[in-house]
């Protein structure tokens, strides 16, 4: 039974990363109509920025949680201003190919300088150790990742669904020309939204650094699963991405316990089933 709970915890942690990453992808797709294949590379950059901040600047994990998303978010905004904005109105394929190319370049540069093996990033002192819950042993850092990710996801959902700024974002997703004609600077809002989505990926990278080590290909390993999560949840759906992210993490964890051979493919099997039954995803709306 202990093993089952352990796999459930692993599933929840993976689900946290899936949710944070797919949330960023959903925000970017909803607003920019770009399938951001660079998301995995930007997640990796978040982890590397945390690593540099600690080893070159002596800046600890807590500051990295704040600074890395800002730094990588600014990098994302530069990408959007200099490259992605020119793809407005073009077929999705152009955005996908461009961001795929950006991902390959970013990963290649990091691989060139740091190789493929992982760099260590220590768990902060405050989050070391674990708690015995009676039915299982819970490492505190892992519990923190699940709780913190959930809070960030819900805060992002609240921002987009329940605030004035979110209303601008949702309206601009539907008709950016009209929203701009109301007096809102839509291009700037798009840049900031891309920065927000990228910042969420970088935040996931920082959270992941102490668990998975810091590796140039850490994002490439994850991004395909995250795309499957977004497709299952419904492209552009915020709550769909959050719920599906956590749910698929748990399902993956349970599969590891009950039928380990299928654990790497269960997400994709589910994706195929969902696409067959509901092509717009579980919470997506038809175009």
């Amino acid at each position, binding site marked *: 039974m202990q093993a089952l709970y352990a796999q459930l915890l692993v599933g929840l942690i993976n689900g946290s990363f899936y949710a944070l990453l797919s949330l960023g992808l959903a925000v970017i797709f909803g607003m920019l109509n770009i399938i951001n294949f660079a998301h995995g590379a930007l997640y990796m950059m978040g982890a590397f920025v945390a690593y540099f901040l600690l080893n070159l600047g002596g800046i600890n994990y807590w500051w990295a949680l704040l600074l890395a998303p800002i730094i990588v978010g600014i990098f994302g905004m530069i990408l959007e201003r200099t490259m992605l904005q020119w793809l407005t109105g073009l077929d999705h394929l152009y955005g996908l190919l461009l961001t795929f190319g950006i991902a390959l370049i970013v990963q290649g540069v990091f691989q060139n300088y740091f190789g493929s093996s992982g760099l260590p990033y220590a768990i902060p002192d405050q989050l070391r150790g674990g708690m015995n819950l009676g039915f299982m042993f819970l490492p505190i850092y892992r519990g923190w990742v699940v709780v913190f990710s959930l809070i960030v996801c819900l805060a992002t959902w609240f921002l987009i669904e329940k605030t004035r700024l979110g209303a601008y974002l*949702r309206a601009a997703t539907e008709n950016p020309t009209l929203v701009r004609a109301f007096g809102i600077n839509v291009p700037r809002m798009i840049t900031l939204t891309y920065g927000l989505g990228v910042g969420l990926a970088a935040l996931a990278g920082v959270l992941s650094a102490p668990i998975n080590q810091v590796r140039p290909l850490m994002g490439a390993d994850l991004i395909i699963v995250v795309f499957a999560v977004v497709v299952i949840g419904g492209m552009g759906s915020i709550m769909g991405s959050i719920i599906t992210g956590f749910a698929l993490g748990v399902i993956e964890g349970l599969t590891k316990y009950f039928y380990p051979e299928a654990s790497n493919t269960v997400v994709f099997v589910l994706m195929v089933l969902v696409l067959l039954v509901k092509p717009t995803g579980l919470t997506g709306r038809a175009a």
Partner: protein
Amino acid sequence: MPETAIAEAPAKAATGGNILQVRNLEAWYGESHILHGINFDVNAGEVVTLLGRNGAGKTTTLKSIMGIIGKRSGSVKFNNQDIIRATSDKIARMGIAFCPEERGIFSSLDVRENLLLPPVVRAGGLPLEQIFDLFPNLKERLNSQGTKLSGGEQQMLAIARILRTGASFLMLDEPTEGLAPVIIQQIGHTIARLKKEGFTILLVEQNFRFASTVADRYYVVEHGKIIDGFSNAELAANMDKLHTYLGV
């Protein structure tokens, strides 16, 4: 007759000075040349209507003034400031509001969010109570999804949301299209009341019977040009010409 002369021809039922001056406005959709030198004026406090057949260039004229059409040339002066190179968000912040033909109600927003979406760009917008006084239906449907409203209610919402912003110059693109006569009448009352409140309105209409109940002056648009213009007092005398222009 030269176009500038046509633009100046209508007797001015003006209640104020010149607020909008359009000269030699040309616009393109990609390679298609749509407007071929539009000239007209709007004075503060009046309702001016652009009449014309489908595809004449009426909507494109409004969109060009609003900065929505990417490729345009000529001169558009609003309060003596040339806005031909300004982006639409900056034009909106100068006090011009646009209500599109397709109404532009956002399906992902409820009525309240739709209503509050356009930011207040300057003082002088109508407070919500006054807007609900004009459109009581909206108050009862605040929590409904915007696109779940009837066509008439959606039109009311589309007009209502630009009244809050403080814009003094409203451009309404075919506000009566597809609406029942009783709703058209209500829209007409609303426009008359807005005029009384001091709003300046540039209206695009194909329904000139409706336009005649609210407009001070008319311009006729054909093939991307203003081909005629007259005041409301001159409408009866120009009826035959108008029937020919509009093909009714």
